[in-house]
């Protein structure tokens, strides 16, 4: 079959990304032709500022080399500007007469700088700041001349001014509005920014109206004249007062334009379905985006439809802003100015150069403006996107996620100040240098891409803020994302919540049935979605949905914990952390008999046997003769206890017995993630109940319950839940809370994250206020756990495939 012809007008970042996405999913469908008005291959326009500032070179910001076009069979007309689209004949024509016919047309004409209509705007030395040519002009001018005026104190203007200053010019920034970057910053942050830039040597004229650019005899600009009569000398005037979507060509072709080329959610123009538009020139639901992440999302959707898959929709993005002036950290998002019905939390330290403002409306974060310390920008942005209630963390909100509990990245919060050898991601041992290198060499833009390539922040995620800062400095990328919903994995567009809901609403009981119902794109999922679906099925339909061992991680398939060399660790259950001489003797004998190299006492008050060969697992379990400890599973691990009132002179309650009772009631309980409990016999809290999923503290008059604590990546103190009197109540309230988490938590979401997501008030309403509901939850948990097998002893019932423990022999048939 003859290939269809795809012509792209505009050789910029959004357009080329669309082609890249298209080549990824459907490389053979089109003959691709690209027209670019600039005589360059696709380069990273955001990084023009570092080039101007002398921090990077032009070569370094090229994203797709000439060879890339060649290797992918793309015909590139660089330096040719398309001047006409003939929609009837389906042909485009360039200014040099080149014609190309198309079946599909992709318009990525970007935007044009807005030039103030003042006398003298056509003089020599008056330029905009938009492309490589402008940048080169500025660099050349800075070498010959001294005085520059930048008109416009927005993002682009300040970056231009900073660059020119670094190149040795004397720069004055003229800004008509009352403070800098008024569309991204409030007045306080704007003035802090001005102060900091003044300290670096920039001059400002705030509130000044430009009246005229005055030229010299040589036809070159000489000075700028203002309405109040002031005159400032200038050898160079840079206009950076804004950009306009470039719709000239589209309008000429009679495509509907309204502050951009109007497109639908599929990125097709509303006028002509053969014509697509992405990038700064496209107006989607009334917005023309200028940041990378939304444009790349558009690119993905456009590519999907061009490839005739027909399943992507672009539904708009929330955006955030950062300034690329090295050494200045600022961040803003949402309704940072506040307004009617909003409240503000403000922290201001003008001497320390730190200012933070959070805008809250109806218990939700709706805006943020940060100056000086932006490491929590991504966290605020996430809260803003998710639109979740912040009532429960309101008092901690200002101090940021890193101060809710802090570990894993040495408290670093300024990526720019870090050396290349400094470690960013402690989990995966990734330093700053290797992240920068990967970003540059592989052309990465988004957090997801950096995670995939470098693994930085891909494990515990506590360094996410740092990684995002590094992306910002290195690639100029931003990290806006589509609001709220995140797909479970690459196999589907559905979120965890949607899958959970569908399983419940439609009584789905098998993985295959769920995937078919929800139109999975892959035949049998992947290692991310299968374990999640399997958990959702068995937790939603206990005793009905059948567990699928092949969809569980190896630990839950072999019922032991895999180690780095492929051996396993075995941790038998010791109720409440108590053991006996007989048990210890059996353990000692097993260690000798199977030559187990390491025996270690765990943090959960049990004994870990490390380095057990898989072939020995069944015998080890049998010889030890103790119940399975589930130390490997997304399930109840242990109930840690202190000695309690039986022995301890301070003990007020029998915490050990309470712990044993809890453990016996809850063991074999699978959950979205691991679950750890503790019971302390007095407020001295020797069992560390404050950092457990459910922590119980005995007091003289009863028991206090704390929930959603975590001693892991981020230490999170448990939140006080309720106080009860009796042992039965401890069981019922703890069980009901855990059942709610089991029914509603997303796979791999710890209780702390679940409670943060839904809010403690909601959990209290369900478990504390609704007595019937609590009893029902507790009953459902008991029903689910009733008769569940011990996988170490009831292999059949637990569906343990015992064939896995035996090796086949290359020497012949299995013995």
């Amino acid at each position, binding site marked *: 079959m003859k290939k269809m012809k795809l012509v792209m007008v505009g050789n910029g970042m959004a357009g080329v990304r669309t082609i890249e996405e298209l080549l990824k999913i459907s490389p053979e469908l089109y003959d691709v032709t690209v027209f670019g008005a600039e005589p360059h291959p696709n380069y990273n326009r955001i990084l023009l500022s570092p080039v101007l500032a002398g921090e990077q070179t032009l070569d370094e910001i090229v994203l797709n080399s000439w060879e890339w076009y060649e290797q992918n069979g793309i015909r590139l007309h660089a330096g040719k500007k398309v001047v006409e689209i003939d929609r009837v004949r389906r042909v485009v024509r360039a200014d040099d007469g080149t014609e190309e016919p198309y079946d599909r047309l992709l318009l990525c004409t970007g935007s044009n700088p807005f030039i103030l209509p003042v006398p003298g705007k056509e003089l020599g030395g008056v330029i905009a700041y938009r492309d490589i040519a402008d940048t080169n002009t500025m660099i050349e001018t800075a070498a010959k001349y001294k005085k520059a005026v930048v008109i416009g104190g927005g993002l682009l203007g300040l970056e231009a001014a900073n660059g020119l200053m670094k190149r040795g010019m004397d720069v004055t920034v003229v800004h008509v509005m009352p403070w800098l970057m008024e569309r991204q910053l409030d007045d306080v942050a704007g003035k802090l920014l001005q102060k900091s830039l003044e300290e670096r040597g920039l001059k400002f004229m705030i509130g000044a109206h430009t009246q005229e650019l005055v030229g010299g005899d040589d036809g070159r600009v000489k000075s700028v004249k203002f309405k109040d009569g002031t005159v400032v000398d200038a050898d160079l005037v840079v206009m950076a007062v804004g950009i306009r979507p470039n719709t000239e060509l589209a309008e000429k072709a009679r495509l509907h334009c309204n502050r951009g080329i109007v497109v639908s959610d599929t990125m097709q123009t509303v006028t002509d379905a053969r014509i697509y538009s992405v990038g700064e020139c496209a107006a989607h639901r009334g917005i023309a985006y200028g940041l990378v992440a939304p444009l790349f999302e558009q690119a993905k959707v456009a590519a999907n439809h061009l490839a005739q898959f027909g399943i992507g929709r672009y539904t708009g993005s929330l955006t955030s802003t950062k300034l690329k002036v090295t050494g200045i950290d600022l961040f803003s998002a949402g309704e940072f100015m506040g307004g009617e019905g909003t409240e503000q939390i403000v922290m201001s330290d003008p001497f320390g150069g730190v200012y933070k403002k959070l805008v809250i409306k109806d218990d939700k974060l709706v805006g943020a403006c940060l100056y000086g310390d932006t490491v929590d920008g991504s966290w605020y942005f996430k809260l803003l996107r998710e639109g979740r209630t912040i009532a429960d963390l309101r008092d901690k909100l200002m101090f940021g996620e890193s101060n809710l509990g802090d570990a894993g990245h040495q408290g670093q919060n300024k990526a720019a100040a870090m050396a290349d050898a400094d470690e960013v991601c402690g989990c995966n041992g990734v330093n700053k240098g290797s992240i920068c290198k990967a970003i540059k060499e592989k052309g990465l833009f988004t957090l997801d891409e950096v995670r995939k390539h470098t693994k930085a922040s891909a494990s515990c995620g506590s360094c996410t803020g740092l990684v995002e800062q590094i992306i910002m400095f290195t690639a100029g990328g931003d990290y806006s994302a589509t609001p709220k919903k995140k797909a479970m994995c690459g196999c589907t567009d559905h979120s965890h919540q949607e899958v959970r809901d569908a399983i419940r609403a439609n009584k789905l009981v098998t993985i295959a049935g769920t995937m078919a119902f929800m139109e999975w794109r892959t035949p049998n999922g992947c290692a991310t979605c299968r374990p999640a679906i399997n958990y959702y099925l068995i937790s939603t339909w206990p005793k009905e949905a059948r567990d699928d061992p092949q969809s569980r991680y190896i630990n839950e398939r072999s019922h032991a914990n895999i*180690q780095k*060399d492929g*051996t396993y660790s075995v941790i038998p259950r010791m109720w409440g952390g108590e053991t006996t001489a007989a048990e210890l003797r059996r353990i000692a004998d097993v260690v000798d008999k199977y030559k187990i190299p*390491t025996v270690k006492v765990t943090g959960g008050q049990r004994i870990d046997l490390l*380095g057990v060969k898989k072939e020995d697992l069944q015998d080890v379990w049998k010889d030890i003769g103790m119940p399975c400890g589930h130390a490997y599973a997304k399930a109840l691990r242990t109930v840690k206890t202190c000695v309690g009132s039986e022995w301890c002179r301070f003990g007020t309650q029998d915490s050990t017995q309470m712990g044993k009772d809890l453990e016996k009631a809850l063991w074999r309980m699978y959950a979205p993630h691991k679950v750890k409990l503790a019971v302390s016999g007095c407020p001295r809290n020797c069992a560390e109940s404050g950092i457990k999923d459910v922590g119980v503290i005995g007091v003289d008059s009863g028991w206090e319950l704390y929930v959603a604590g975590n001693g892991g990546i981020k230490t999170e103190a448990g939140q006080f839940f309720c106080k009860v009197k009796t042992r039965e109540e401890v069981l019922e309230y703890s069980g009901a809370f855990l059942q709610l988490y089991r029914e509603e938590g997303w796979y791999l979401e710890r209780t702390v994250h679940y409670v943060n997501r839904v809010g403690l008030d909601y959990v209290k309403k369900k478990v504390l206020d609704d007595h019937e509901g609590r009893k029902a939850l507790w009953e459902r948990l008991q029903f689910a756990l009733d008769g569940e097998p011990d996988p170490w002893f009831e292999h059949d019932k637990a569906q343990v495939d015992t064939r896995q423990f035996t090796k*086949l022999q*290359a020497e012949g048939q*299995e013995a």
Partner: protein
Amino acid sequence: MKMNDWKVICRVEDIPVLGSRRVARPRGMDVAVFRNDQDQVFALLDRCPHKGGPLSQGIVFGTSVACPLHNWTIGLDDGCAKAPDEGCTQRFSCRVEGGHVLLDPVELATLALDVQPPRAGPCGE
């Protein structure tokens, strides 16, 4: 190579659907045989190119397996890591005849004999 030169290892149904079995060799590391949901069978050295994880213990999906240690995805047909990860593990010829899984004894006796298993524990490092 003639059919009778191949070694019968097991029957297809001895391998779980979307699962695998380990095959011990007299010398060298184990070979993992995988079965997908189309009853295709594949054989790879049981060692992830990343940090040596036992691929036989991973989750099988499509024609890939996810390594149990760090979740690299390895193609069952070519033994190579999916982008952006890089690296390949030794693949072994494998065929199914009359419901039997067959491996090539010459390959079993000669391929990847020097590859060392990952080590752990006090004697390791």
